[in-house]
């Protein structure tokens, strides 16, 4: 849809002080375009870099000035070339002026669309804003920014500024930084702009929203405090998992050269009776069955629809309660956002008043929500205040779904105090732990909070889009390693660890871990994370081996007779004593194995194994004094061989002297020694064969 198209101009600072973070800028910008190529193919993007040696922009040609700004790419519909451009940003040589760049960007948008296009227009500025901006010819810089802001609003443009600071930028003049921050804040105040400050490469990658999702309301209507008092609200999703893209199945049946082949795969489902797999049941003939004890009760959709629970649409207040009554881990789902109906001043006031009162009193509200008519169930959840820090943005609420009684499983766990004393930490250990928790702080005061979810990109998606781009150029490209910057999300920060080395060492010193010798450690050790460096990994391997050999000592539990070592499996099973049923099971399984060996034999290749199994079975049956199963099997085999006219197998049996079990071997047998032996004669092939 045209109105959903976005026109975006990237304003990228490539001056010398930015060189350190340009790789990240390249990554995040190309990712932005990569996603647009998939999800928003019609969006248009232009690229402006500033801080370059050269100058190349229309404003300079027209009015002069605006030096060191290069329009790398005019605004155009996204394509692959754009990614190539963004992946190789020029490294500039002079300190850029971001205000000039903003003017160039605005000029591009205005000229291109001349007020015809009413859709989304956006500027995206990435700079460290540590260099002075040029004085304006008339009025102060503030006035100049003010004029720009007015113009920006008039043209319906939005701006997103990402300011790279902290460890990422060198020591800069504080006064200039402050002035720049003040100028940028004017934009935030006067326009629909957002300025974020980032001080780590990870947050730089996360700060720019690379995928544009048009927000859709979940619910529009009244938040009913009571019958008399209602507030008009709109409800949006605040968080929603951005999933790994669902890739379509590819069929390689059609020749790859064929131009018209879609290569798509259709998935077809067939429903067949469990008893009779030849009849296919048409989908309409299916009916849903629900378990009721051991039975399954069929309930048709029509029946179910007629009697099922049908709540009325609406969002109703049940009451307020202390925030402490709602424990954080009961939040069930992704989070919703309640905002007052936009433009409705009174609704905004009402939301603001309640949110602020809730905040002051440390209360939360419990709501019952039915978002749509026809929804299957109600949602009960907790509404928490979100007091806006930005003057432009009204106060709002967050809403989290709470569980019903049925959803909470009341498992009991032993209290820590009931543990044996040796399991509880002593005083020194507790101190070491305290220090550890205190020192390994990810949100030290005065510094940006590390790994803030808002600024932490999804490493898997980043890797996927990277790989996609590689593959589009070279179809057999290998999966690229995880980006070094993003690796820091998955592993402890080495720097932080290094700073607190003594604390870490003390923790290790105070706590001793050892493998449980009784339990075989075979599962745990090899899984041990192989550390980031090689040494660690090697250490683990040798460890693992050492323990593995111990781990094998306990007899392996055999519960089935396998194909590889049937005789051994059988013997192990026969000697198991933890349940009397093992003997019966072993004999049964052995019999089945022998029969399957014979029937699946091609040209007698299994006969030797089968005879070995028979000998083992015979021995086992004598030991257990259970001659029946063996003797019955042998007689069956005899008939089987006669019917199928198999002669080699009986020959083999006779040559190995495998007889029936006689009375003298097991009292329960019906055969005397003589009879048992005669069976062998019988089984011998007749001479005429």
């Amino acid at each position, binding site marked *: 849809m045209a109105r959903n198209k976005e026109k975006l101009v990237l304003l990228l600072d490539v001056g010398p002080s930015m060189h350190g973070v340009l790789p990240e800028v390249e990554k995040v910008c190309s990712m932005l375009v990569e996603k647009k190529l998939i999800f928003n193919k019609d969006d248009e993007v232009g690229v402006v870099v500033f801080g370059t040696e050269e100058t190349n922009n229309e404003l300079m040609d027209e009015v002069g000035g605006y030096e060191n700004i290069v329009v790398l790419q005019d605004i155009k519909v996204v394509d692959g070339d754009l990614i190539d451009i963004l992946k190789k940003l020029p490294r500039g040589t002079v300190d850029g002026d971001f205000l000039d760049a903003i003017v160039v960007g605005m000029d591009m948008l205005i000229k291109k669309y001349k007020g015809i296009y009413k859709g989304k227009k956006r500027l995206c500025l990435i700079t460290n804003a540590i260099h002075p901006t040029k004085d304006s010819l008339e009025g102060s810089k503030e006035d100049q920014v003010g004029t720009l802001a007015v113009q920006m*609003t008039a043209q319906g443009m939005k701006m997103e500024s990402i300011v790279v600071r902290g460890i990422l930028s060198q020591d800069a003049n504080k006064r200039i930084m402050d002035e720049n921050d003040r100028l940028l804040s004017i934009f935030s105040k006067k326009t629909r702009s*957002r300025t974020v400050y980032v001080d780590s490469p990870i947050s730089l990658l996360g*700060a720019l*929203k690379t995928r544009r999702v048009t*927000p859709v309301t979940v619910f529009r209507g009244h938040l009913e*405090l009571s019958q008399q*008092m209602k507030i008009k609200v709109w409800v949006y999703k*605040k968080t929603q998992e951005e999933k790994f893209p669902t*890739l379509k*199945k590819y069929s*390689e049946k059609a020749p790859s050269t064929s131009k018209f082949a879609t290569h798509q*795969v*259709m998935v077809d*489902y067939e429903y067949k*009776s*469990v008893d009779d797999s030849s009849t296919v049941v048409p989908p309409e003939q299916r009916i849903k069955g*629900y378990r*009721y004890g*051991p039975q399954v009760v069929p*309930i048709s959709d029509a029946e179910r629809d007629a009697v099922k*629970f049908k709540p009325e649409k609406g969002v*109703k207040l049940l*009451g307020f*309660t202390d925030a402490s*009554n*709602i424990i954080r881990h*009961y939040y*069930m789902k*992704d989070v919703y956002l309640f905002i007052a109906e936009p*433009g409705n001043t*009174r609704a*905004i006031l*009402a939301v603001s008043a309640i949110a*602020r*009162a809730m905040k002051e*009193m440390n209360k939360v509200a419990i709501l*019952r929500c039915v978002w749509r008519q026809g929804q*299957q169930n109600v949602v009960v959840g907790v509404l928490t205040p*979100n007091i806006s820090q930005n*003057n432009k943005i009204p*106060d709002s609420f*967050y809403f989290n779904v709470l569980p*019903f009684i049925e959803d*909470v499983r009341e498992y*009991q766990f032993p209290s820590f105090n009931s543990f*044996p004393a040796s399991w509880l930490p002593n005083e020194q250990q507790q101190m070491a*732990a305290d220090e550890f*928790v205190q020192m390994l702080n*990810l949100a030290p005061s005065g510094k940006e*909070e590390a790994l803030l979810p808002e600024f932490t990109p999804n490493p*898997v998606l980043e890797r996927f889009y990277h790989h*996609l781009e590689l*593959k*589009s150029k070279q179809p057999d490209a290998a999966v690229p390693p995880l980006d070094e910057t993003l690796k820091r*999300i*998955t*592993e*402890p920060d080495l720097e932080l660890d290094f700073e607190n080395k003594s604390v870490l060492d003390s923790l290790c010193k105070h706590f001793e871990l050892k*493998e449980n010798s009784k*339990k075989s450690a075979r599962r745990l050790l090899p899984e041990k994370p192989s550390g980031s460096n090689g040494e660690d990994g090697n250490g683990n391997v040798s460890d693992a081996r050492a323990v593995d050999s111990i781990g094998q000592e306990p007899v392996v539990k055999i519960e089935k007779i396998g194909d590889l070592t049937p005789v051994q499996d059988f013997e192990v099973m026969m000697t198991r004593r933890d349940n009397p049923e093992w003997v019966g099971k072993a004999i049964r399984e052995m019999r089945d194995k022998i029969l399957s060996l014979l029937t699946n034999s091609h040209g007698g290749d299994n006969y030797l194994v089968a005879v070995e199994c028979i000998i083992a079975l015979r021995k086992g049956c004598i030991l257990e004094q259970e001659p029946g199963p063996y003797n019955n099997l042998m007689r069956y085999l005899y008939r089987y061989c006669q019917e199928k006219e198999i002669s080699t197998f009986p020959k083999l049996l006779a040559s190995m002297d495998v007889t029936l079990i006689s009375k003298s071997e097991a009292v329960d047998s019906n055969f005397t020694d003589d009879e048992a032996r005669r069976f062998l004669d019988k089984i011998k092939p007749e001479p005429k064969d």
Partner: protein
Amino acid sequence: MDLDPEDVFKDEEDDPDNEFFQQSESSKEYVVYLVDASPKMFNTTCPGKDQKDEIHFHVSISCIAESLKTQIICRSYDEVAICFFNTREKKNLQDLNGVFVFNVAEREQLDRPTARLIKEFDCIEESFMREIGSQYGIVPGSRENSLYNALWVAQALLRKGSIKTADKRILLFTNEDDPFGSLQGAAKADMTRTTLQRAKDIQDLGISIELLPLIRLDEEFNVSVLYSDLIGLDSEDLAQFIPSAGQKLEDMKDQLRKRMFTKRIIRRITFHIVKGLSIQLNTYALIRPTVPGAITWLDSVTNRPLKIERSLICEDTGSLIQEPPKRFQPYRNENVKFSMDEISEIKRISTGHLRLLGFKPLCCLKDYHNLRPSTFVYPSDQEVVGSSCIFIALHRSMLRLKRFAVAFYGGSSRPQLVALVARDEITTAGGQMEPPGMHMIYLPYSDDIRDAEEIFPDTEDDAPRADKDQIQKAAALIKRIEMKDFSVFQFANPALQRHYAVLQALALEEDDIPETIDETVPDEEGLARPAVVKAIEEFKLSVYGDNYDEENDHLGKEKVGGASRKRKEIAENAAKDYDWADLADNGQLKDLTVAALKTYLNAHDLPVTGKKEALISRILTHMGK
């Protein structure tokens, strides 16, 4: 030599790794309901619901019936037997007098409850006198002891299964506090002694006996005559016993239909704290949305279960695809292909472990940092000795310093950052409310967080903010509509309860669907209290002013009502463009576009989902063709 062969050959691995884990809960319950059917049970009454008197036998039966109906949904793998004593007829394996084990076809005596059992048990009272009969089993001059016999039968029924895997109980319903009261002297002493011995033997086998006495108004049930010894009550418990037993009876009737889950470890994970220090944790799902249970597809003609076969068909050639197909993503005007191995390689960005990254103050965990239900983690020393010790130390530090841990959980499905929030144990008289341990809360990535609140400030003015007075009025309102002891355990899921009720009605072929109550509706009565109404009115006046109602209604109708009405009108008009009956008769519906078909569906309030064929068939059905 008296060696237990089980002991000699016991596999080393069978050894429970220490005393501690031996207390693990049994997974199943075997229950024998032992109901006194003596004439006294039929003669005495107690006030029931609606002030009507109910006879004791009926109370017991309905209590068991309700309990069974709950159990078949909650814990359908538990097994029950129902056994009457003091009966005229006898039916039990031991052939003992005065004991009758009730059962239905296709079921063992101690077995899972079936719909048939519940159904037949529901109407047992009608046929009871005719088929089973009531008769005192303990009379002077006879050696018969029906209570003893009943216990013996119950014990025999519970022989099945090991005490390690099942929890075995006998629930005894009676209103006779002195069953041997009619006897004298040595006979009485002898019978009392043998019965108590039998009960003790049963308890020694690990079977618990619970007494549910039925009480008359005018007469006390004196537990100390016999039963306190029989069920092993201390003198301390004695005073508490009668009230709590009464409560138990009530509880049995009013149990919530809630599917019980056995405690199960979802995953054993390694928690990597620092280099060289990795402990073992078990994860549990304490909170998960409960759904009506798995659906089994049945053939509606035969009611036999169906299996689903999936086949992949190439759209170009129509041939069947056997091997798992590759995947593709259209990109830059071509199809970029991925093999499944590549995809799983992309997703594997870390070993499948939990890696500690650091700690943050609890206030950094925002309300919107949530995606899915949390997972509970609890340490295990099973494979790494010392895990619990470190875990407890960290747990205590985190509680004291009000920090949560940030860790990376490298599972295969979605590797992501998690917050580990320590929770202390909370116990009440009723047991453990909150287990001690940490809750793993899944954190969103930046791509998962949206900024919908930022999309609307399109004016140059600042957003309106409530002033002091308005906030005060809101505070007064909050005070008025306060739920003091709210807990998340408060509401039953109305849709689920309804589903269970429907299921029960259909399974037992009942005509009426049992009523279910939606506990989640607002307390209208409470909201109508004058003080509350006043607080609401004051707040309303303060934020809305005097004349809001009109504007409100005006706006509402214009905007929402108008738009949808208009849409409907258009649809109806569009639908008139075609002669539908004619088209349907001539089979020309398929020539119309889907959009045109939808105009008909819209105009008749029919669903517009599905493929074109589905739409056409829906239209034909609607026309009655």
